């Protein structure tokens, strides 16, 4: 009886922890709605903004979940998105074709991702450090591309060219297709299970015959597709690209994934929905900050505290007796 109670209590506790990111999102949603009523905010327009402002990070971060599941980490995704978008825009300007632009964005992003993973796999390099080097290389490449394009500080796709596809429906279709693909691969295919196994216990995974290098390459390729789609959506929303394009996306991806309840150590507890929940939560939080007109410094302090609180609660049930690393 006592045991049953205890188990039930534990189950409730586990559920609370598991739902914490979603609870955080719902709470933020509630606060935003309350503020919207008090402060006369245009709610439908705000929802459209939230979709517009989170879709790039959601798409890129959903792909990145595959990398995180392996217990790896890629800090160069923002720079990769920037370079993919720049080359995609150049491809559009050369061909005047949106499908070519889309394929170029995705192709370049996958190529960059594969370069990172192949470098790491073939030469046995630590993935994270490889991506740090890629971050530097890609940032420099962005400068070179912009300079080489002849326009100086920007590469532009004519606004009229992307006007037709700069709408919420189009973005949601891209998101749904990619998210669907990722959910299918992650939750219903061997690949996802293997990735979780590899991330949770690489030694056992190796002993059972899993090829860690191949899994890493697959994870980076899937993430590359997400980054490429993110690049395409970035051009769609803001067709003037500069060396600063997507400069915040790299860190936004990390924050979103963690905020969404994804364990950075990867493994079996990895969740493909983390990126969606995290990115929406962060965008919602930004909307709240704006509505409250918080000073930049104070806003960042509040953001840090909320981030720590939500993540702390969501990961409370996974704490052991030694310090996590």
């Amino acid at each position: 009886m006592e045991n049953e109670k205890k188990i039930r209590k534990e189950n409730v506790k586990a559920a609370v922890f598991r739902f914490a990111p979603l609870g955080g999102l719902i709470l933020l949603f509630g606060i935003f709605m309350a503020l919207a009523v008090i402060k006369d905010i245009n709610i439908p327009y705000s929802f459209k903004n939230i979709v517009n402002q989170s879709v790039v990070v959601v798409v890129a971060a959903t792909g990145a979940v595959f990398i995180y599941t392996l217990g790896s980490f890629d800090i160069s995704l923002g720079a990769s998105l920037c370079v993919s978008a720049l080359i995609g825009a150049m491809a559009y300007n050369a061909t005047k074709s949106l499908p070519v632009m889309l394929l170029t964005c995705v192709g370049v992003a996958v190529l960059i991702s594969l370069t990172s993973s192949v470098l790491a796999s073939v030469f046995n390099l630590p993935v994270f450090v490889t991506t740090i080097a890629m971050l530097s290389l890609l940032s420099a490449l962005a400068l070179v591309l912009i300079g080489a394009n002849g326009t100086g500080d920007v590469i532009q796709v004519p606004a009229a060219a992307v006007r037709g596809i700069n709408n919420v429906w189009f973005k949601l279709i891209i998101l749904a297709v990619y998210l669907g693909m990722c959910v299918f691969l992650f939750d219903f295919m061997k690949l996802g299970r293997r990735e979780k196994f590899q991330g949770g216990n690489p030694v056992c995974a190796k002993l059972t015959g899993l090829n860690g290098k191949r899994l890493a390459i697959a994870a980076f390729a899937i993430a590359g597709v997400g980054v490429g789609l993110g690049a395409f959506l970035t051009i769609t929303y803001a067709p003037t690209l500069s060396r600063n394009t997507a400069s915040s996306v790299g860190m936004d991806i990390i924050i979103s994934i963690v905020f969404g309840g994804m364990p950075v150590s990867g493994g079996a507890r990895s969740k493909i929905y983390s990126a969606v929940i995290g990115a929406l939560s962060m965008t919602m939080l930004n909307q709240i900050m704006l509505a409250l007109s918080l000073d930049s410094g104070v806003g960042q302090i509040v953001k840090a505290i909320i981030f720590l609180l939500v993540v702390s609660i969501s990961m409370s049930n996974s704490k052991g007796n030694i310090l996590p690393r």
Partner: protein
Amino acid sequence: MKMGKKITGTLVIPVITLIAAWIICSSQGVKLFETQLNLLTFIRTVANVSLVTFALAINLNSGRFDFSLGSVALLSSVISSKIVLALDWGPVAMLLLSLCFGVIFGLISGAVYVSVKLPPIIVSLAVALLYEGLSFTLTGGHGVSFANSARLLGFASIPNFLIIIVLALAFMIIVFDRTKFGYEYKALLSGQKVAVSTGIREVPNALLCYAIAGGLMGIQGFISATTNGTIQMSLNFGSISPMFMAFLPMFIGGFIGRYSNDKLGYLLGAVTSAFISLLYVRLNVSSSVQQITSALLLVGFLIYLNNEGKLKGLFVRGGGKG
């Protein structure tokens, strides 16, 4: 290991880098060390990079990735400079205050980590945001300028930097190689679970690691501020960039550590980085070329480091055939 091999292994990377930098400069008709300023620039870079490398390595070697290092330097230098400028104190006071605040903010960062028991990378993201926000709020976004404070600016001299470098190295060697804390640190590093089950108290050890890393970053913040004459504000993780300069020296340090002491290795790694940095200065290399070169050097060195056996095998076989 023979002494000759030890010395060769310890010095090979910085010496080769120096020779390469010297040759490249000479081919362009420029002397690498032409004036005392070049030497000052070199030593200052060594001081900056070695402090960040020590701070990064302390936690990274234990699997604790810390994004907040730059923000600790920022916040501690902001507060110490505010106090020093208000009270018209000198650079030594600012150095000590920066050190103290660095220790405090490092300790706070560590305390958050050990109390919420989240992966350190997550904690460091939150702490970086927090400290950047605090720095911004404290200065109203304006940052701090020392352009009028000759006393503070006067600290930037070769002897002062050398004293800091030597003291930091000595401190690192003594604390991590000659104390109980250091032995426990190494035990936790090589086998966390076993070490904890043998009775090593992990929490105080981790806290001290964060405090030391914070103190080192406090000094780095002080050097950066008093050399450059200003403290610029950063938001949205703008403070994490100093961390990236420490990876190459850290890996070089790991390599050198096989032949001598890893802390000395970190310092020599910083010396190597400083040669490269001075080369950029002397040849006025553009930012994009710098970034590409540095990234390729990092990747190239890591490829060598992680494939040393294979490469040696190739070389030996090739040599045998020849």
